[in-house]
């Protein structure tokens, strides 16, 4: 039993370990180790294409995570009052949104947006004074943000709602009893109580968007996110520079996940008092 367990873990983590090790390779070929060096990290960070892709990824992740967090939190709060069959339907839709494969979300978002744009663009052009200079809606950062935001919103709802459900209802009543208006209660009791979940939701949404390749690949248009850059570089062969980028993304993602998890856990302790 133990042997199999170890084998499974080795199988899972050896490739990742290899990437991390080879990112410190002094040589320029990915397949042979030639001493220790951090030069590839320097090269990666001074590569203007990498930096531009990083900026695109960070912008998309920050904006989509923010939108997803706001919409997701509001949805989680609103869902408190929903019970019975409608609740079951909402719950099912939420979990489906999380479990649908990225490729399906990617394709369907692409088709939906392209259809919408094809329908809207002639109308905009028709109302624009000079038809030639009319703005054209197309794939880009906006569509990336929309696709990622929709996907990660379901995630935020699930995380925040667990927290809202675990919250002691009598705290809300106690606040009202002590003279706080409904808005005052929300600001002084509900928000501090669910804040850890909101923050954790934001961080998870950010990582999912930042790391996502499949959905981005379909809807990015001419934009290049970091995962898309890595994918296209690999076609020219795996260089230690790519390993360095991969290792950095992995480290940052893991760090954010650990932070999100510890926030959630500390929040749970504070909730039970």
């Amino acid at each position, binding site marked *: 039993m133990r042997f199999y367990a170890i084998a499974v873990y080795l199988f899972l983590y050896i490739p990742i370990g290899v990437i991390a090790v080879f990112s410190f390779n002094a040589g320029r070929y990915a397949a042979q180790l030639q001493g220790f060096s951090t030069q590839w990290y320097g090269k990666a960070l001074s590569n203007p294409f990498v930096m531009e892709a990083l900026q695109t990824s960070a912008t998309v992740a920050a904006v989509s995570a923010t939108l997803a967090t706001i919409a997701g939190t509001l949805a989680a709060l609103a869902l408190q009052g929903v019970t019975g069959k409608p609740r079951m339907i909402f719950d099912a839709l939420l979990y489906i949104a999380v479990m649908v494969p990225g490729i399906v979300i990617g394709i369907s978002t692409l088709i939906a947006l392209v259809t919408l744009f094809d329908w809207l663009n002639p109308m905009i052009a028709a109302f624009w004074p000079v038809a030639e200079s009319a703005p054209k809606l197309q794939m880009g950062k906006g569509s990336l943000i929309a696709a990622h935001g929709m996907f990660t919103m379901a995630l935020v709802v699930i995380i925040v709602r667990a927290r809202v459900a675990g919250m002691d209802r009598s705290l809300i*009543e*106690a606040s*009202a*009893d*002590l*003279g*706080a208006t409904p808005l005052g209660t929300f600001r002084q*009791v509900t928000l501090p109580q669910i804040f850890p979940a909101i923050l954790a939701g934001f961080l998870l949404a950010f990582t999912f968007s930042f790391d996502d390749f499949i959905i981005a690949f379909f809807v990015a248009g001419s934009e290049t996110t970091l995962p898309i850059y890595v994918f296209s570089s690999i076609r020219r062969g795996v260089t230690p520079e790519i390993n360095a980028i991969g290792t950095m993304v992995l480290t940052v993602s893991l760090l954010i996940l650990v932070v999100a998890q510890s926030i959630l856990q500390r929040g749970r302790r*504070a909730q*039970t008092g």
Partner: protein
Amino acid sequence: MGAESLTGADKSSIAELRGATKRFGAVVAARDINLSINRGEFLSFLGPSGCGKTTALRMLAGFEAPTEGDIYLDGQRVNDIPAHQRPVNMVFQHYALFPHLTVAENISYGLRQRRPKPPAAEIEAAVNRALETVRLPGFGPRRIWEMSGGQQQRVALARAIINEPKLLLLDEPMAALDKKLRHDMQIELQTLQRKLGITFILVTHDQEEALSMSDRICIMRDGGIVQIGSPRDLYDRPKNRYVADFVGKSNFFEGRVTSVAGDTADLQGAAGISFIGHAGAGIAVGQRAIASLRPEQISLSRGDGGVPVTVVNRIFLGEHTEYLVQNPDLGQFLILASRQAEAGEGNLEPGETGSVSWRDGAALILNND
């Protein structure tokens, strides 16, 4: 009262429920509750879970609106006034302290909701006074989870009294405390109530708690009030078997009423054993009823002058000893013998036989409902 109830609430009462009924779908949680609460009194709602006592309290707090009837606070109809605008504060069953705030921040919460907000120095002084009142001086900067159950309860109390509410509502505040602590808290609550002069309304299923603290007790069943009275009234003059059973321990013997003279009735029980005592409301000759006898009103002796019994079990309670005895006709019942009464006779061991007797007039003849 007639003319007054048309114009407004009775001036001597701080709060009033008039025909208050609360339905949740098909369930009637509170049924036509009429109750006038006196200024400065300590009133308890007593009953088993689901009897409507908490619903009555929540209607006063403003967490539930009555489906029918009216709620008055200090002469004003408050049916449509939400909880946060009512001059009423509550101590919640599990305290509902805000875990993200310190003890001092919890206590000052009510003051900080006022507009305009009182100056910081004033709030601090009030918090310190409240901490003194509940005997927790210097605990202000602590976190809630650093406090023990008993301390948390005091914080909840301090938080509720800082606003000087017209009514202080207590929803089973002692349920989470152990027995010793509960007793101390009961005494403290009573002292506090006298000191502050605030009207206290307590919800409890613990009859001892209600009996020891209240000026008046409101016994509830199935959403309605069964009887309202002082603890002594309820103990000595219960309206029916339910009240007699709920307030203190009692033995019940079924039988038929053979005579009623004035307020005294005679009930013939099993094997012609007679019970004479105060007749409850609506007791008439010929009807089936029950005789209620408190365990301390029955005396047990070794001789054979009374009803013969066999001792089934004996529990030593310190100053008293509780006997469970058996008679072939009356079945099993309880006797509470004081140490003093036992001194001459010596203890009866389980299995030994003796006889029991009670004075004429000791029983209560009640309707069996």
